[in-house]
């Protein structure tokens, strides 16, 4: 951990905080646009393409429109909590970014000040992110409760249960990273990944994290708190105008936050991807790492969008069962394996290569278990009648039968 953290001049801290704020807001606008474009392409559509080049200004226009809408406070709402909730959802989303490393130490242009591209760091930085995101849930829960509406309340309850459950799996997937890096500080975890990114030796943890980060951010296919088919809009049903915009902002920033955390913990943080650093010496110096970092984050954002474009929403009981009965036990078992391997490596009984290959082996084993799984025999269905009558009711011809008739 750089000794500079906590001892920098005030203007440097203020500048970095301001830059993080600007980056997050602009990145959010960009992500909303990206999501709409990519999902549209996945559905044979174009997506927003009118405002600005490639429709890039669409989300800005939407934001302005949202801000100018009528601000409604529902009659049955608990006024104070109702106003507080969106603020509570948004602030922690920003706070989490104070410990995300964007790059190595750089010199600020036009000055002699050298500073790390990270607002601050602490020995428990990753735990801090977990803590801050758990405060963000308050916004959702309180919004659900204070709206005085059944839909919103159910959405809020669902969300609290969901986030608490998936936070457990998320925390467990961090444990193995801590064991490998020997620290909880984000900048040191990035430094520990100089040779090998952790997603490879810790593949099971990485997979568990990627799944639980989708659950944690209430995104499809786990967007049950706002399942619009069942709960209208979930916790933000009764919100409008700027308050709704704040929820929207918080959701997208949370998406970026978990992506950035995944990048930091598993994908080597701001380090250049494989191969680039070997070819080009300066890839990991100066401001270039910001590019790699944002690129890796964007990769996770794309995964989010891809999931949304592909998978239907899960049922709530399936979702909870998946979290508690599969993700957590798998994580626990994997942590046990990692502990044993690390202990053996520390004593020198086994080679480092074996330890680093363990993740891949475990992943292959898991895939094999899934591949050879036997489906429970489904109860026999009555034979589907074909042709023009089924229990006295007319049914349309099956496709192959119509072809037969045509011949």
């Amino acid at each position, binding site marked *: 951990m750089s000794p500079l953290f906590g001892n920098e001049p005030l203007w440097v801290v203020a500048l970095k905080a301001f830059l993080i704020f600007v980056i997050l807001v602009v990145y959010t606008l960009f992500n909303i646009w990206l999501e709409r474009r990519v999902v549209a392409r996945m559905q044979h559509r174009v997506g927003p393409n009118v405002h600005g080049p490639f429709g890039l200004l669409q989300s800005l226009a939407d934001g302005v429109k949202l801000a100018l809408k009528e601000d409604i406070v529902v009659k049955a709402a608990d006024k104070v*909590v109702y106003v507080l909730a969106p603020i509570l959802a948004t602030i922690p989303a920003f706070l989490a970014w104070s410990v995300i490393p964007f790059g190595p130490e750089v010199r600020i242009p036009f000055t002699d000040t050298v500073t790390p591209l990270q607002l601050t760091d602490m020995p428990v930085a990753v735990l801090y992110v977990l803590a801050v995101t758990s405060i963000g849930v308050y916004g959702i829960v309180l919004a*659900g*409760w204070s709206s005085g509406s059944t839909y919103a309340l159910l959405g809020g309850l669902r969300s609290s*249960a969901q986030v608490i459950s998936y936070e457990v799996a998320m925390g467990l997937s961090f444990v193995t990273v801590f064991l490998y890096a020997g620290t909880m500080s984000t900048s040191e975890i990035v430094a520990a990944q100089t040779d090998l990114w952790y997603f490879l030796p810790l593949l099971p943890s990485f997979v568990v994290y990627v799944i639980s980060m989708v659950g944690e951010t209430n995104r499809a296919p786990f967007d049950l708190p706002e399942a619009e088919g069942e709960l209208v809009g979930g916790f933000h049903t009764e919100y409008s105008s700027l308050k709704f915009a704040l929820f929207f902002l918080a959701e997208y920033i949370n998406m970026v936050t978990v992506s950035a955390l995944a990048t930091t913990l598993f994908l080597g943080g701001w380090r250049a991807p494989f191969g680039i650093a070997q070819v080009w010496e300066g890839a990991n110096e100066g401001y270039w790492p910001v590019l790699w970092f944002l690129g890796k984050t964007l990769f996770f954002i794309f995964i989010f969008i891809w999931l949304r474009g592909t998978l239907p929403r899960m049922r709530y009981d399936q979702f909870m069962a998946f979290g508690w009965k599969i993700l957590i036990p798998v994580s626990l078992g994997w942590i046990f394996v990692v502990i044993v391997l690390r202990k053996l490596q520390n004593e020198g009984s086994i080679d480092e290569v074996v330890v680093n290959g363990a993740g891949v082996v475990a992943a292959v084993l898991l895939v094999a278990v899934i591949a050879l799984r036997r489906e429970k025999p489904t109860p026999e269905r009555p034979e589907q009648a074909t042709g023009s009558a089924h229990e006295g009711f007319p049914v349309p011809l099956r496709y192959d039968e119509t072809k037969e008739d045509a011949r």
Partner: protein
Amino acid sequence: MTAFGVVAPIVVIAALGLLFARKAVHAALSLAVVMIGLAVLYAANGAPFLFAVQIIVYTGAIMMLFLFVVMLVGVESGPEAVTEPLPGQRVAAALVGLGFGAMLVVGVGQVVANGFAVPVAAVEDDNVEGLAALMFGPYVLAFQFTAALLVTAVLGAMVLAHQERLTPQLSQAEHAAQRIRDFGTDGKHPGNAPTPGVYARHNAVDAPALLPDGTPLESSVPGALVRRGQVIRPPVTGPGLGGEPSSDVAPRTDDETDGEDRS
């Protein structure tokens, strides 16, 4: 100690809020504020690990459980019991509590005034490592006991909150079959209730649908609105009158006033 100067008043005010809040949710919120404030104080006093744990465990998990139960139980208990089962208990309790506090202040104040034998040490850099060394060193037994306690508590909570099912849960298919059976025996309509306002000149849920013969279908309006007496009766108009739907519609009263005087 700038952090203390800012945080301490907030914490005390929030704690008082816990004492005076009428709604359980407000009490839980103020307690959450207290906990976050304390977490900040921990961070300012050389305990960054406790700072994270305080927020994750207390604010994130425990208070969330509280909120969850408040919402699940639906405890808007309203004003608390007006009648005092023990007369004067509240006043007495408040006095006792304050006296207790005063006693603490005197007792601890003496200790502080006498000063400590140990000099103030510098804040350690290796907070996490130090805690780990303690936890898995001298205190390993206590650590194991808390682990056992947690497991026991989880089992206890499951046993307490578990409810045995008395009747088997019906599957979707069985529900459907049951509906058809009800239709066969009692003539209960198996499908959805008709939507309100379909054939009417209104498209609001409080306007009953008009059957093809022009009579309103009461069962098309949600039951809650019927009970509250909020069903509107669309004016009776001939099919040839056309034009804009008239807006003066009378809320239906319980004594079934006819709509004719309104058309």
